[in-house]
């Protein structure tokens, strides 16, 4: 589990000890910097018990939180990324993919799974920030497209959990077109009258926010997530003044009319089940 590894690195004990510690032992909140027992933090669904900060978690953690008995089947893992453009910056995209795969234990920035939510089937596509910043390349687009087709074929609602800095630069216009591809495909889900839930988590920006993430029948978010089109740094550089407090947070988006609901992670499963039932009954 990549995420545990990342958490462990933030702890002040020596590296050797960290590796031997079976349960991570301590977690230090990235927001309020207070520490808590790792086991406690995990039971808390990775939400800080002091300040309520929702730590970034991955697709596997979300699947475990939402699916009944933590049981689910992963779909479309045959769809794999490759370096079609021969893109290279400090290292080649080919090498970057290989290294990121090894380091994160993931094969791209999104995982699709099917399982049950309080007894009813649901398809979830969840993004992983640890895989090149959760960036959307061809694989993300294709897996979402296939997940939509699967939802339609099996008459199931669809949930996307977004966590992404935007489009993947190393795939240039190929990644840009995934915005159009996924947005277009979602119209088929609507035609089949299947609900599409979009859950935005920290962060959801760029080409992901400007495509499928904003197109939910219900637009949902975790508290205090960064959500926006342009990144705060870019905006600051453009307008050359400081950004207002709370700008581009979930709460800001809700106030401006772009979210239906903000859901605390501890309520995520029960609230999703409740919302699902409204469409079913």
């Amino acid at each position, binding site marked *: 589990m990549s995420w545990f590894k990342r958490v462990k690195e933030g702890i002040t004990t020596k590296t050797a000890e960290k590796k031997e510690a079976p349960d991570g032992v301590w977690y230090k909140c990235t927001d309020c910097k207070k520490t808590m027992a790792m086991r406690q933090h995990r039971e808390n669904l990775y939400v800080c018990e002091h300040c309520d900060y929702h730590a970034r978690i991955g697709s596997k953690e979300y699947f475990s939180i939402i699916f009944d008995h933590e049981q689910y089947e992963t779909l479309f893992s045959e769809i794999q990324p490759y370096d079609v453009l021969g893109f290279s*910056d400090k290292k080649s995209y080919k090498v970057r993919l290989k290294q990121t795969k090894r380091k994160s234990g993931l094969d791209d920035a999104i995982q699709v799974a099917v399982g049950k939510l309080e007894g009813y089937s649901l398809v979830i596509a969840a993004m992983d920030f640890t895989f090149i910043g959760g960036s959307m390349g061809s694989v993300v687009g294709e897996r979402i497209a296939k997940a939509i087709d699967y939802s339609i074929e099996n008459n199931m609602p669809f949930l996307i959990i977004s966590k992404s800095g935007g489009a993947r630069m190393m795939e240039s*216009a*190929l990644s840009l077109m995934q915005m159009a591809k996924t947005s*277009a495909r979602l119209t088929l889900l609507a035609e089949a009258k299947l609900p599409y839930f979009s859950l935005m988590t920290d962060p959801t920006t760029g080409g992901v926010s400007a495509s499928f993430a904003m*197109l939910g029948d219900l637009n949902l978010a975790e508290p205090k997530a960064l959500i926006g089109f342009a990144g705060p740094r870019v905006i600051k550089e453009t307008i050359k003044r400081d950004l207002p407090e709370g700008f581009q947070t979930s709460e800001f988006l809700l106030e401006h009319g772009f979210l239906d609901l903000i859901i605390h992670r501890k309520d995520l499963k029960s609230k999703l089940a409740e919302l699902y039932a409204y469409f079913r009954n």
Partner: protein
Amino acid sequence: MIFLDFEAPVASLYERLQKVKEISQTEKVDLQSAIADLEKKIEAAKHKVYKNLSPWQRVQLSRHPERPYTLFYLKNMCENFTELYGDRLFGDDKAIVGGFGNLDGQTVMFIGHQKGKDTKSRQYRNFGMANPEGYRKALRLMKMAEKFDKPIVCFMDTPGAYPGIEAEERGQAEAIARNMYEMAQLKVPIICIVIGEGASGGAIGIGLGDRIAMLENTWYSVISPESCSSILWRSWDHKEKAADQLKLTATDMKELGLIDEIIPEPLGGAHNDPIITVKTVKSYIKQQLAYLMPIEPKVLVKKRIRKFGAMGKVEIVN
């Protein structure tokens, strides 16, 4: 004429030609043969300079200050064109224009990014960087076109959607996403043409259609070469390398299966003969409309969604 750095050989010959022409006028001497000779040399120099343009040079041409912009096309392409304003929600964005045009008897809804020609008009047009109300105006007009069975043509030419506080407050991301979602299912033909800069979400917000074309010296990418360079190398110095890497030219885009057609420009770029450029673009539009208009709306929409569904490159590993 404004010349770019790599056009220096053409520029110096052009300067000489202007001088010779001046002399022949003021001194009333016949310098016809010298003029013809220089014109021939200019033509040869042009061929040499423009034969193998690098991606970065094409980016420069796409931003040439004398390049024709959307309203120029519309005024010179249509018998009549009436600009229509406002999104009916917030305001009127000057960076995206739209309206009905009469294209040889066929009413077409035209939408396009609009840039300015001088400091004042550039600011007025916000440098072609639209706010959410621009995308929402575009959508309002496209929906009206659909209602009355009129085809839609979009001209893309933007350095990006505007990254500002108000743009975020009014939902820049939602506006762009909504446009793509709606454009995917509009029951009338849509033709999208990159006439200058096709920068990322700002461009694709009016870029989903049945036909996607690029003028020869334009670019279309997820990010500008400068921004790409600054993210990857922490400075703008590598913009040429970034332009190479991003595979952003019309030729690259066609090879990747992301566009349908490359529309040729006059030698030296669209601004060298804007009227010819307009004519070429017009004939492309008319030819494609003739093909698309008889297609049953349901089929059209299905094909459009499938067209974009095929975009992307993945490996299937079993």
